[in-house]
């Protein structure tokens, strides 16, 4: 019988992290990139809670930090929407490849 240990949770988080980075690298839509960012932030959250559970009993530090990471994710999502609307007003698209007037 397989017992679920810390490593398994870390693996899940690592998969989330890699998916998030991959999403950010490949998506051209601003909202898609934001989803990638959220995946990576959630991988941090999974890690924190898993460490809390397996480092020893009675720990809350990681859980508190995970909560705050969720707060940050919410704040960034709000900001992202604002910035995307701003881009849409100027360029009528949220495709980040279209926004490429700044070149060296």
């Amino acid at each position: 019988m397989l017992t679920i240990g810390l490593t398994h949770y870390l693996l899940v988080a690592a998969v989330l992290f890699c998916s998030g980075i991959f999403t950010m690298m490949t998506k051209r839509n601003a909202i898609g990139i934001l989803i990638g960012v959220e995946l990576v932030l959630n991988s941090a959250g999974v890690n924190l809670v898993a460490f809390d559970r397996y480092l020893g009993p009675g720990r809350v530090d990681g859980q508190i930090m995970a909560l705050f990471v969720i707060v940050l994710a919410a704040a960034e999502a709000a900001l992202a929407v604002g910035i995307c609307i701003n881009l849409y007003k100027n360029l009528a698209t949220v495709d980040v490849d279209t926004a490429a007037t700044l070149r060296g």
Partner: protein
Amino acid sequence: MNVEAYLVPLAPELILLIGACLALIVGVIKTPRQMQWVSPLALVVVLAALLATWRLGVPDGSQGPPGLWLTSLTFYTRCIALGVGLLIVLVNWHQPVAEERGEYMAMILFSLLGVLLTASANDLLVLFFAIELVSVPTYVLIALSREDSRASEAAVKYFFLGAMSAAILAYGLSFLYGAAGTTTLYAFDEGAAVSKLAFGAQMGSHALIGLLLVFVGLAFKVAAVPLHVYAADVYEGAASPVTGLLGFVPKFAGFVALVKIFGACNWELPNTVYWMLWVVAAATMTAGNVLALLQKNVKRILAYSSIAHTGYMLIGLLVGPVAGQGPMRDGVAALFFYVAVYGAMNLGAFALFAAFRTGGRPMETLDDLAGIAARAPLSALALAICVFSLMGLPPTAGFLGKLYIFSSAFSLDESHAFCGPLIVLAVIGVVNSAIGAAYYLRIVAAAYMRGEVDESIPTGGRPVRWGLALCSIPMIVLFAWPGGLANQARNATIVLHDSIRPVHARLTTTTDATEHQQQPAAFRPHQAPRRGAPGKPAAP
């Protein structure tokens, strides 16, 4: 515990917070008459915070709420961030032209507040949020800075790369938490501060992954390779006054955070981390300088120059703190000195672009700059001082900054395991400074040697010109009398030295209630020469 004991030591931070909220409230009333009060309000807030810093003096490490540790590093950061913050407010005085000035000034104040909190953070959570408090307002600032598709494009690029680096930083910090078992950086035991991230050079894989990811996350803030790609586009897209802020505020906060985390590791970094930092430093300097040579837009040149300067500062970070030494030998003190000087000289260069318009648009290219010396000799002189300072020519403070950084590497102890590679790195830095001279001279030459292409009209108004003057004059003054700033930079590194870490009593952590004591603190004197502590060299 009475409330004052928590609040009074945080007076500068609280003043900034209240001031930022006031600016937001004033910003709601969007009449032109109210708008003109916003910039003076921001100026008064920063001045009040500076005054509070001065009145409080150097914190002795015994006060302040849990999660924060107010030390000489806090004091130095408050002085520098608020000092340069004052100049930033002056340079941004008339920004933006549209009616969002209240929000705009509030964002500047929030960003400065983030820098101050970064320096005091004693908890990974606080550190992470302080760093994000620095970054998040800057995204808004870029978008607000002008009504232009280029500004919104710059904001999108900066925001998404910034959000990615923040997420990577969070992931890295989660590993550091897993390795350390606590989110605290320093715990206070038997009256002495104990590093909680002291894994030793043979750290486990969690700690190593954590450190590497934290560095990658912070590399964005300081604009180091490979997360430097945004710099040129963002600098070009944002309005010049914001660009001056972008070159300093996130960079300063990023370096303070790196110093804090490496300090909490007792500077015992594994060879992997050392070599990675070495490669990043060399690549950052070289990429910044070489790419700057290819640019025509002055803002892009200065963006790549900002990357190159990050490379020089990384040398100081690699050398690390050397106990009881001034910035000539102590890498971190040299880094702190350099980043302060860099903040002012970089802002000064951008202030000139904020002060003039050519052909109906803000000044940007070398052609726009042509002939400015004939039209506005004093402004051109200030620009020349700032650019010579960026280049590292005497008699400017930029020269001293580079001298400190390089001499700290050259004077490393022979027994230091990375003595050889660091000297090579310093040589690369010197060669890079010489390459850098080429493009800096093009800026000065355009201003002084060429005739006017398009008429440049001063638009900045008096505060911007004051800001420009106050950026350039200290460059000369600091060259003549660097002692004050150098001493403060040295004092700021005291907390990083294991053997002389200030005694501390009262700070509590949520993890371990037994780690704090109730005796009053006894802080060692800040005058480093009298301390005479042996101090352990920063061996990796």
